[in-house]
């Protein structure tokens, strides 16, 4: 199932910006003025993007496509907040430090299998997310759950499960009244 811009910026529609405006956006319109990087100058936004994309390829189901643009667009909203951007940056730096130590390479350059085992070895699968917790809990919060939240609160992620208007997405007043697709 194809992820779209609509999924990443689903929040826009509810804020009265409306579907038309969203559809009219192009890549340079993400993040209001496209200067998300400028707003969090000290963080390595490229590395965050690369790392989260590499993690998304592991934590998203195989049938999802369009991940790169989706993750990029979602992150732009997140990087606008300096506190969150800094915490993301620190978590990603830690991930790379451990990946270098254990696998001799940065996380994003590992094979898909390598990334999967890395995330399990770090303990992100069994950890409960905690933004102020251990490395495992922070990786769960800032990497794994950051990505799962983005996906499963989006219409495409919801549709995979059979709910085209998942919690967190302003999908309007019709879907709750509709029966299942025949």
């Amino acid at each position, binding site marked *: 199932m194809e992820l779209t811009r609509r999924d*990443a*910026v689903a*929040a*826009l*529609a*509810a*804020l*009265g910006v409306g579907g038309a405006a969203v559809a009219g956006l192009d890549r340079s319109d*993400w*993040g*209001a003025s496209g200067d998300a990087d400028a707003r969090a100058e000290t963080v390595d936004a490229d590395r965050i993007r690369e790392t989260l994309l590499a993690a998304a390829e*592991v934590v*998203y*189901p*195989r*049938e999802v496509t369009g991940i790169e643009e989706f993750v990029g667009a*979602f992150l*732009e*909203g*997140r990087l*606008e*907040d300096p*506190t*969150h951007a800094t*915490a993301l940056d620190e978590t990603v730096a830690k991930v790379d430090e451990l990946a270098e130590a254990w696998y001799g390479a940065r996380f994003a350059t590992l094979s898909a299998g390598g990334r*999967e085992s890395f995330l399990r070895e770090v303990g992100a*699968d*069994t950890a*409960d*997310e*905690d*933004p102020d917790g251990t490395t495992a809990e922070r990786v769960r*919060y800032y990497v794994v*759950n950051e990505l*799962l*939240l*983005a*996906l*499963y*609160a989006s219409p495409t*992620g919801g549709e*995979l*499960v*059979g*709910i085209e*208007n*998942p*919690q*967190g*997405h*302003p*999908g*309007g*007043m019709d*879907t*709750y*009244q*509709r*029966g*299942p697709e025949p």
Partner: protein
Amino acid sequence: MSGRPPAESASPADGAADRSPVEDADVCVIGAGPAGGIVAERLAQAGREVVVLEAGPRFDFDDRLARQERAIRPAYDRPDVWDGDPERDAHSASGEWFYPLNHARVKGVGGSTLHWQGMVMRLHEDDFRSETARGVGVDWPLEYDDLRPYYAEAERELGVAGGEDNPFAPPREEPFPMEAFPPSYSDGLFAEACDELGIEMHSVPNARNSEPYDDRSACVGYGTCQPVCPSGAKYDATVHVERAESKGATVIDRAPVQRLEHGPDAIDAAVYATPDGEYRQAADAFVIACGGVETPRLLLLSESSHYPDGLANSSGLVGRYFMDHLFAGMGGLLDEPTRQNHVGFLTSESHQFYDGADAEFAPFKLEFFNYDGPSPVEMALSGDDWGDDLLERLRSEYGNHVGLGALVEQLPREDSYVALDYDRTDDRGNPVPDVHWNVGDRALRTIERVNEIQRELLEELGAEITWQVGPEDTGPAYHHMGTTRMGTDPTESVVGPDLRTHDLENCWIASSSVFPTGGAMNPTLTIATLALKATDHVLESV
């Protein structure tokens, strides 16, 4: 604005720059929930100099998506959504039943309606004369007809979407301000079973916009109404507080009132703490609107030589008769999709059994859920799996749930009360409220009966029953009532039918704390109704 701001980005707004008292205030309103907000707006509209003191902070509307993320992510507890502070909000629960107070309220501008569900119905005629009609409890000193015009006004104030298809509702004179929300897909599944069993379903009045109303958008289906509506379609009391300010009222946030200074017959001033020190707000009149727990607490904290057992407490009943509505529920699985969790509110109920109440069985209403079972996004964030395995789990666990709820009345009992716990103090050194909650047999017996009806319905529907909340594990609906009860006899009540305390000539109470009995309808429409009535009485004197 792009995408979703992160959960950590929400923080209380800066709030008032100057927290010093207002000179020449006519009325000091304590608490900025719906009761305080409505009173303040009406009084400001009438040209009075009004100051509102609110214990909690102001919140920024633009933070609501971040707060929504807190509602979804497992790292956050419910009280975190609205910046609950365990020290500020410390409490005890010494009754037979535990009371989770901090899940049951919000402190801040908007009060608990920031978190609420937003179902708003009128009490029934018999709820006002429980003793006469049902042989238990007490009669209110007011009748339904006394409140009827105020109810209509309250429905306009809150913005209620409702239908006239409820044959059990008390008489009304005009349509609801907005059309009811249409029934959900799962309501339709229940409708057939209800037909078979002769149970009538009808719409639910919601303080939630089914169309744009009052400069707020129509509901857009975020599905997180409880505990936060990011669109503002669900009514919350910031609506009235902001309107009060636009009409000249002063709102001071982070200003918990510590005690009320008074003589034998009147309050002189409210002493309130702020981040920059303690102040004293004098006024001609005071309206206490701190909710059903903090209202009696503030009176008890304000004891003096005139009132050794607590202010306005000559009757000894301040804090007594604490009541809530009891929850009863049941749910299960069908072998077909039921389309849950698209929206976070209810579209159908049945009040059919309500007026059959008597001394043995309490009034209750049945609720048909639109959000039974897990929400996929919440499930995704708390498993040990990801990728295809996670998707498979979500697919197998989401989709086929159905559920029924109910609210049941509990009777007022003297051994169910809010008192001060002198062994524990809050962040300012004040004894914390102890919610000593006891329930009683009539309510528990009624829950059993409700469970029977719920079971019959689910079986008729062909559901495999997977959960039940019955008399052993029932819990509160977060409706705090009864603790400064209304009556005509000053030895048996705290306020009169004019909502003024019997003891003090310039102190009114706007809260469900004045309810002599609770009925089984969610209380806030009646709170708003009484707030409007209280305002009229305040205006007669200042």
